[in-house]
């Protein structure tokens, strides 16, 4: 079992969700976070260009069984990579994969792969 954590552009969330659903991955948790990596994208507020220090992002968390890791990662990349001007831009985000020790379904008490 793996926990896949993706940090993506906030406005790409729907693309990523639709891409995941199309790939058959339907169980996700989403939260708003702030942060920055190498991104220095200028944004316009009230007509002024500002370079925000902490940039709003979305964190998408998905717990999957090992055989679904590649499908999930590919679906996230497909949805999160910007395609507007050039394919792939600084700020598109990152995906982290961590081993998942245990998973328990609260309703039934099931454990492990079946509970995911």
């Amino acid at each position, binding site marked *: 079992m793996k926990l896949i954590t993706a940090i993506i552009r*906030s*406005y*790409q*969330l*729907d*693309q990523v969700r*639709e891409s995941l659903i199309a790939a058959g991955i339907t169980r996700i948790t*989403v*939260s*708003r976070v*702030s942060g920055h990596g190498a991104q220095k994208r200028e*944004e*316009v*507020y009230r007509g002024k260009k500002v370079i925000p220090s902490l940039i*709003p992002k*979305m964190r998408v968390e998905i717990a999957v069984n090992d055989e679904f890791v590649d499908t999930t990662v590919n679906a996230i990349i497909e949805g999160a990579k910007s395609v*507007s001007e050039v394919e792939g831009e600084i700020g598109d985000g990152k995906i982290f994969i961590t081993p998942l020790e245990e998973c328990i379904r609260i309703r039934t008490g099931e454990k492990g792969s079946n509970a995911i």
Partner: protein
Amino acid sequence: MLATLAIIMGLGGLMELSAQPGVDSGATAWMITSTALVLLMVPGLAMFYGGLVRSKNVLGTMMHSFAAMGVMSVLWVTVSYSMCFGSSVLGGWFGWNSDYVFLQGIDETIMEGGVPEYVFSMFQGKFAIITPALIAGAFAERVKFRGYLVFITLWGLLVYNPLCHWVWAEDGFLFNMGADGAIDFAGGTVVHISAGVSGLVAAIYLGARRGYPHRQMRPNNLVMVMMGVGLLWVGWFGFNAGSSVSSGLSTAQALTATQVAAAAGALTWILIEGFHQGKMTALGFASGILSGLVAVTPAAGVVQPLGAMVLGALATVICYLMLIVKDKLGYDDSLDAFGIHGVGGIVGAIALTFFIRDSWMANAAEAAGGSWSIWQQLGVQVAAVAIAMAYSIVLTLIILVVVEKLFGLKSTPEEEMQGLDHAYHGERGYGMLNPN
């Protein structure tokens, strides 16, 4: 010294007064207040619609209302006042009076009721703002901002102005239909039916939002929705009670009708909902307020409080049923511009016939030269509603096709997924509010 000053200032004041013969300061003060109240409805509507959409579209949706304040105000002063309240041209299609262009000719005009014409013009101009803003609820979350600006400009010129002229100008053909005209006190036909029906046409022509109806699209902020509806209710007193263009008995009648219709509508909605769904929702109460207010809009000048309450309750029942029908039919009238404003307006304009106060009917009978029955008036009301609907449908469809082909109106799938705020404004409405 001080006394002399006071006398001079007093005289100055007197001279100023004598320079404006015929101004009824009471009526003028109320009309200015009403003008401000009707404008207050636009940010109220922005909050109502803004709270109902998903968080990525909140600013774009509020901008639909605010942009109308800019576009329609400029249009109004430029040509719209002339098109609405000038003398009929082109066989009565709309009005025209070159004196009204840029309001140049009314700089010193005091109208018959003792109200400066500027005040009347600005008051009427607010109705031209809120009407296209109402349509935006039907195609929320899926139109390009630039296309929207072009759309409301053309719609204001070609749909609102002619309708306003027909119903409210003294030589408009609906104003003179039947014995004493088609009854549309404050804009049931001109504002709500035209906006609702046009919204329905636009919603069907542009198609549904991505994922509708399978994906849940929850309101991002119901607190804002409630405040918005509260502002709308307050503003509606200007909308209805101001439409008497006076400050007297008819103002008081309209004011009372407005209050009780909204209250009856709201209570009816939560009662139906309580029996039907098991819980009485805040959004239901808000929707009931709106249904009641919309239904009493055409009727406020002619019905008594009991009639107004029945109208409010009746409109709510039919609007509630209409929302169920909408889900069955599957078209995406996103924020129920047609379901509430269109349907409520139609119910109000037609059903008001059965609650007209006797003195109005007596006047109408006199004007008709003997007798005038409610069935004859019903015919006039139905005809006016049918004409407004047919005209709105045809013209809106033409405008939609033109704007979509020439400027682009429907958002691309990418823009829709990113949300209007990012795609067209480059801004975000909220900080860390949970995404939905």
